[in-house]
């Protein structure tokens, strides 16, 4: 078998692993962290105020109008849901493929997933005209005489898909964390700390029986999450694909969206991991350049897939011979919103091509910049899909433009405040790397005779 680089550097002992990973939780936060946290928190509060404003005055504060009835909120919703894919992908699919390198990034990736989905989940709720009635989207028995929801509506599929995904991925995340929380508990110096982590770890002990069940549930959840993670963005894509709007009504959407999701998800993981490595230098030994490189490869691959989808859309639009379809795509590339289309293409297709070069794949600063570009590009992908399809549809008399307002900006920027607030908190209070999963792979890629240990 081919020789692989060690997954963990610097000959760590089991104890070192625990010490290193628990360090951020146990020490006083650094100034940098405080700075970042306060910044994010301020943005978060601003976000909350904006939402309050919009809900109390009316969704008309945003740029949504006739004909473009969906805008920033839906765009950003899809954006965050997309990001919330990498985590489960890493922890589930790569687990099933027995990709050992996943162990050290899995935890944070999953955390990112959960938080991203949480951030995304806000939007469908607040983008409605009467958010206080959102609960009507759930099929609950009521006194209003037979009154149910419309199970034919993709939006309702969305409600089920996103809530299921949110539930399962957080469960997956929490279950995986139990043994580590037990570790933190047992290292705890003071009683309160012991109590809290004791509760969080559900009284885990690490007996052989528990471990065997643990491995099993992990396998099961992985097995369930794999189709789930693929289904979520498929169903999100149905919001568009099931409609009859040229530019939305496309069968390529499900795979195209999933690829895009993974693409953006990994980009966000790279962004965060580079930051984490800077913030917590001791993690450099666990989240190694090798890890980053693998993820960059995935980014490049999915980037190509997305690029293929862009091309395929045009081909089919032309091949269909449908005037409306053809017009929409010509309009995307040449119409009033061409700028957004070309931002999308260059960020998502051209920039990732840099990763063909090993040097670039392994250079932290460059990959950071690239990942940012990809994030931008993926937001614009959703912008292009939503706005450019809507703004010029069947009857030319309907044609219009999206009336972008400061509230759109506020909502978009604010959502990052929410995401980073939660993520920074997570880095402080929970083990950011899966201790129990790293330990078995300590020796992978070291002296050959140790091979097979752990697995």
């Amino acid at each position: 078998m081919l020789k692989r680089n060690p997954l963990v550097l610097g000959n760590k002992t089991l104890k070192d692993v625990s010490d290193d990973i628990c360090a951020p939780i146990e020490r006083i936060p650094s100034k940098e962290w405080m700075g970042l946290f306060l910044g994010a928190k301020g943005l978060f509060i601003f976000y909350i105020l904006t939402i309050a404003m919009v809900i109390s005055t009316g969704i008309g504060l945003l740029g949504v109008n006739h004909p473009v009835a969906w805008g920033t909120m839906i765009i950003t919703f899809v954006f965050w849901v997309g990001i919330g894919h990498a985590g489960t992908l890493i922890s589930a699919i790569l687990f099933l493929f027995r990709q050992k390198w996943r162990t050290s990034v899995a935890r944070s990736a999953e955390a990112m997933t959960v938080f991203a989905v949480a951030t995304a989940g806000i939007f469908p709720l607040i983008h409605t005209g009467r958010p206080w009635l959102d609960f009507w989207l759930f099929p609950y028995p009521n006194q209003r005489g037979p009154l149910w929801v419309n199970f034919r509506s993709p939006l309702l599929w969305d409600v089920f898909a996103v809530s299921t995904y949110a539930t399962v991925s957080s469960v997956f995340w929490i279950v995986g964390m139990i043994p580590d929380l037990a570790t933190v508990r047992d290292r705890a110096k003071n009683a309160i700390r012991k109590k809290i982590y004791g509760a969080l770890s559900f009284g885990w002990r690490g007996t052989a029986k528990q471990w065997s069940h643990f491995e099993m549930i992990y396998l099961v959840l992985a097995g369930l999450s794999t189709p789930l993670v693929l289904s979520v963005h498929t169903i999100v894509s149905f919001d568009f694909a099931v409609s009859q709007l040229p530019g939305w009504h496309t069968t390529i959407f499900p795979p195209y969206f999933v690829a895009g999701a993974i693409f953006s998800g990994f980009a966000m993981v790279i962004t965060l991991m580079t930051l984490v490595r800077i913030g917590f230098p001791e993690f450099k030994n666990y989240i190694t350049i090798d890890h980053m490189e693998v993820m960059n490869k995935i980014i490049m691959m999915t980037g190509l897939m997305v690029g293929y989808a862009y091309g395929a859309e045009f081909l089919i639009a032309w091949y269909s011979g449908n005037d409306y379809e053809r017009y929409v795509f010509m309009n995307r590339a040449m119409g009033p919103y061409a700028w957004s289309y070309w931002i999308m293409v260059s960020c998502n297709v051209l920039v990732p091509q840099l990763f063909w070069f090993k040097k670039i794949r392994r250079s932290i600063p460059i990959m950071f910049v690239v990942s940012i570009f990809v994030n931008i590009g993926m937001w614009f992908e959703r912008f292009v899909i939503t706005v450019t399809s809507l703004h010029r549809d069947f009857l030319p008399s309907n044609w219009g433009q999206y009336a972008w307002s400061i509230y759109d900006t506020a909502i978009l920027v604010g959502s990052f405040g929410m995401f980073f607030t939660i993520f920074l908190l997570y880095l402080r209070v929970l083990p950011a790397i899966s201790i129990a999963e790293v330990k078995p792979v300590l020796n992978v890629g070291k002296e050959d005779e140790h091979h097979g240990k752990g697995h």
Partner: protein
Amino acid sequence: MAKKAIGGIAGIFLDEATTVNAATRVREAGFTKFDALSPYPIHAMEAACGIKRSPIPYVTFVAGCVGLLAALALTYYTSAVDWAINVGGKPMFSLPAFVPIMFELTVLFAALSSVGAFFYLCGIPRIDPPIIDKDITCHKFAIFIPENDVGYSADRAEKLLKDLGAVEIKKMAEY
């Protein structure tokens, strides 16, 4: 599974290999109810302690089926029976449109029940369980022989574990 408190003897080990080997030996010595504790999952351990495959997958399967049927029932009853109404010229029971719902509920039911089963089988959540040694969740390993085990005697167990390389022997009042 909350058992009433039973004491026993625990031996602390320092590395994976010795522990696995020890576990095998203890089992050969005729003990059946003993348990091995480790900071991370050790696959060899299951064989060593003779632990049977976890039953969780059966739960998963059954729960999944239940979820599927529940979703089917819900969509059928609400759209075709209780409130049959012409929506977009589609049939009252538009099965293809209900598939996503059915899929999601299948997964949801399966996942949550499995986790439930996992908690049940592991006997958690458990309020402050007895800790043999704090470091067992960190870098140490342990084998525990309960006093109610077949042919258990404190000295025998202690000797056995020492021989097998336990660096430390602990008498536990409860386990």
